[in-house]
């Protein structure tokens, strides 16, 4: 926004009387800025609102689980308070900026009345923020307690998650299940509560477990076990990802949490507990798995593979994605993954196995039977 400057000398001389008239001060700039801010706020709110209906959404303002609801309620309160402060103080700033600006033609040499302070005003604007801070503090403390120190119902499900570079090891100790990257939990209703308590540990560096619609995030710190709880109220898929920078492939360490109906959950558990069927038609692929370095990192129940560095593959086909969300779990992607995982997920710690195409085909055919 360029002001019309007619006198070239005035482009730097703003204090001489003839120039003051030409270089208009910028109250309009304030209005433009405010309009811009307003349109942003409207646009942003629209985005957030739209996200609420979007099934892929990870908006923190579409909570689907008890702790997430607790957070949103606190958030609404905090937004109300800070919004109020913003409106009041911004109005004062804008008013002062416009009302008390120097107007052209005013006597240059006259200085306004010098007011050095006011004890009563300053006391008031110290006490009021202290009161507001106290109220916020008390509210916050209560929600911290509610989320960090919850009551644990008898029917709670336990899941153990161990963070690795760059995947999630998932165990259900009571069921003897081991899987990776995708977690199934039962939905919970108010009457018969069945929340899921997730124990968070790390095998290497610091990671963070974040599924926004289900709970706030919590870090996986080696040597410092943490516990998070979720209580989804509606069946569905909830997306998340690692939220603490953990190395090269941090961006592709995604999470999928499925909230299942009781029947679906029981079916899933039963499937995960089942041993894979020994299918002779894929024996060739199974031999590839057992004779190459695959077994150093991966485990498949019923084979000699008992590695723990990489994900357990016993029920690989029950998962939607490969590589913690790096690619969809399709036959072609699986072959591409085995051939060169770094192509689908740069920075992944699984090396290219240098298998021939035939070996890869056989292996993929075998893995496809691990449902």
């Amino acid at each position, binding site marked *: 926004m360029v002001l019309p400057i007619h006198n070239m000398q005035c482009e730097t001389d703003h204090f001489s009387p003839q120039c003051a008239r030409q270089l208009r001060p910028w109250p309009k700039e304030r209005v433009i800025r405010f309009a811009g*801010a307003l349109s942003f706020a409207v646009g942003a709110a629209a985005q957030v609102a739209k996200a609420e209906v979007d099934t892929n*959404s990870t908006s923190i303002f579409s909570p689907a689980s008890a702790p997430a609801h607790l957070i949103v309620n606190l958030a609404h309160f905090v937004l109300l308070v*800070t919004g109020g402060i913003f409106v009041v103080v911004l109005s004062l700033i804008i008013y002062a900026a416009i009302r008390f600006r120097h107007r052209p033609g005013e006597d240059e040499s006259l*200085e306004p009345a010098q*007011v050095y302070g006011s004890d009563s005003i*300053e006391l008031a604007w*110290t006490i009021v923020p202290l009161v507001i801070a106290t109220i*916020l503090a008390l509210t916050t403390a209560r929600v911290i307690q509610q989320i960090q120190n919850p009551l644990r119902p008898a029917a709670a499900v336990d899941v153990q998650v161990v963070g690795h570079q760059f995947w999630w090891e998932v165990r259900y100790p009571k069921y003897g299940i081991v899987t990776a990257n995708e977690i199934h939990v039962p939905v919970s209703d108010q009457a018969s509560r069945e929340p899921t308590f997730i124990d968070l540990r790390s095998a290497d560096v*610091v990671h963070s477990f974040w599924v926004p619609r289900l709970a706030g995030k919590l870090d996986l710190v080696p040597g410092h076990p943490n516990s998070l709880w979720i209580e989804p109220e509606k069946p569905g898929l909830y997306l998340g990802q690692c939220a603490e920078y953990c190395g090269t492939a941090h961006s592709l360490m995604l999470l999928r949490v499925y909230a299942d109906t009781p029947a679906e959950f029981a079916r899933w558990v039963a499937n995960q507990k089942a041993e894979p069927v020994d299918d002779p038609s894929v024996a060739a692929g199974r031999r590839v798995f057992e004779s190459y370095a695959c077994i150093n990192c991966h485990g498949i129940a019923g084979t000699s593979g008992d590695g723990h560095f990489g994900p357990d593959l016993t029920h690989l086909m029950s998962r939607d994605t490969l590589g913690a969300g790096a690619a969809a779990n399709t036959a072609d992607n699986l072959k591409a993954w085995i051939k060169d995982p770094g192509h689908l997920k740069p920075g992944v710690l699984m090396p290219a196995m240098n298998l021939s195409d035939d070996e890869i085909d056989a292996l993929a055919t075998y893995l496809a039977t691990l449902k």
Partner: protein
Amino acid sequence: MNHESVTSMFGTGAQGAAGKRETDHSPGAVVHSWITTVDHKRLGIMYILYAFLFLMIGGIEAMLIRLQLAVPDNHLVGPETFNRLFTMHGTTMIFLVAMPFVFGFGNYLIPLMIGARDLAFPRLNAFGFWLTVFGGFLLYYSVIGGEGMTGAGSAPDVGWFAYSPLTARAFSKGHSTDYWILGILVGGFGSIATAVNLLTSIVCLRCPGMTLMKMPLLAWLYLVVSGMVLLAISPLTAAQIMLLLDRYLGSHFFDVQAGGSAVLWMHFFWIFGHPEVYILVLPAFAFASEIIPVFSRKAIFGYPAMVAATVAIGFVSVSVWAHHMFAVGLSSTSNIFFAVSTMLVAVPTGIKIFNWIGTMWGGRIRYATPMLFSLGFLIQFLLAGLTGIMLSAAPFDWQLTDSYFVVAHFHYVIVGGIIFMIFAAIYYWFPKATGRMLSERLGRWHFALFLIGFHLTFDTMHVPGILGMPRRIYTYGADRGWGTLNFICTIGAVFQAAGILVFFFNLIRSLRCGRVAGNDPWDAWTLEWSTSSPPPEYNFSRVPRVNSRRPLWDLKHPDDPDSNYE
């Protein structure tokens, strides 16, 4: 640019002759005089030029980050490079841009404002500066000297807060992390040296009549900043020594296998990290407290309260650090304590905004470029403080931390608050340092472009955070709903870059042919405006004696001096 004009612009011509009968204006002699200088004004200018250099480099890093994130599934740079970009961007902007700006302005202004000839230890001053320079170049040497985690690229890629155990030998192979440690360690010693200098100068060298409660607010703020540097940089130095010992001598400070604690690094880092951001913002408050009164034509409202609030911030800010660690899994008692202390420190910080409004109230505000940037600062810092309050509510923070919401928050503080005031300070004091005014017209272009760009980028950036986008990811899927928002953020970056280019053009052009400023172009009231522009090397030909907080107001208004009132 001929040598004559260079030397006269920075006031070395006449004074050089007075001091050493030097008439040698050959390029070699000029460069030599700048390299060997112990003059606080020259060192201050060099700090600021150094900051400009790294502002450009850090800005290019930011531009690449924004270009990579502009659209989903982008492949402009891969994750290895991206991780180095955000690590270097953060490290550069904090240690090689913001800190040098802080020390540069402190160096230049403090002696002039307290009526002294130089800082207390001029040679230590030069030493501190060159340590800072060396630290920065050591950090960037990593680009050719170190090897990264996968052997590809060499700059550090562990994030600017370098969490353990990612920085352990096992996870950070090669030397890139060592360059991060050593570059900042060395620079840290320079910072401590300068803080010692500034604090000693403010305590010991104030001119007669200038009691602590009569010195400019800028001096108070720098007094507290210096104290905080002494207390806050040291924990980082200690932690970095520990990390070096872990990496090279096999010690176990952060070695979880041996019983060490990854969380301990976090505590030590943030005990530095939080006071550090106050170290960066307090000078912005200092500039605002000098500039807003002059352009509102009124004394600062509530000087004693401003002093009290500053000291309170200094003390309380060392007790809030674990609000950066709410999601780490500390006990509810710890989280409650740090939430409360953080909300508490917001009170003295917020009060200052009211004091500045009170200064403008009833004034006669002139919107020269320094005041435009100050007004932007006021509104933006208000917003940044409020998003800070949101983050201090720990459960809300459990969603917002490590997401683009917190990235937006701290850029709002650092760019919308600190950088805006640095621009204001440059437009305000450039005439004093060089004898020439910066162009008002170009200044307004700079302001408009940068303002639009800042808001496009950082207002928008809050939203992807709310929609679940974590930070430090090099790409994201098209189905996440973050694409359009990221694109808007990137467009804003282009505007900001344009604004900065206009600014540099303004600087260079005004050095050559800006309007001559005279001693006191803004009709201001503190001692630096009583000298010539630029000041002579010795600053004051006679030690000034002051009776009030605004010595030049008293001189200009002998019938109604400040000393009658406060």
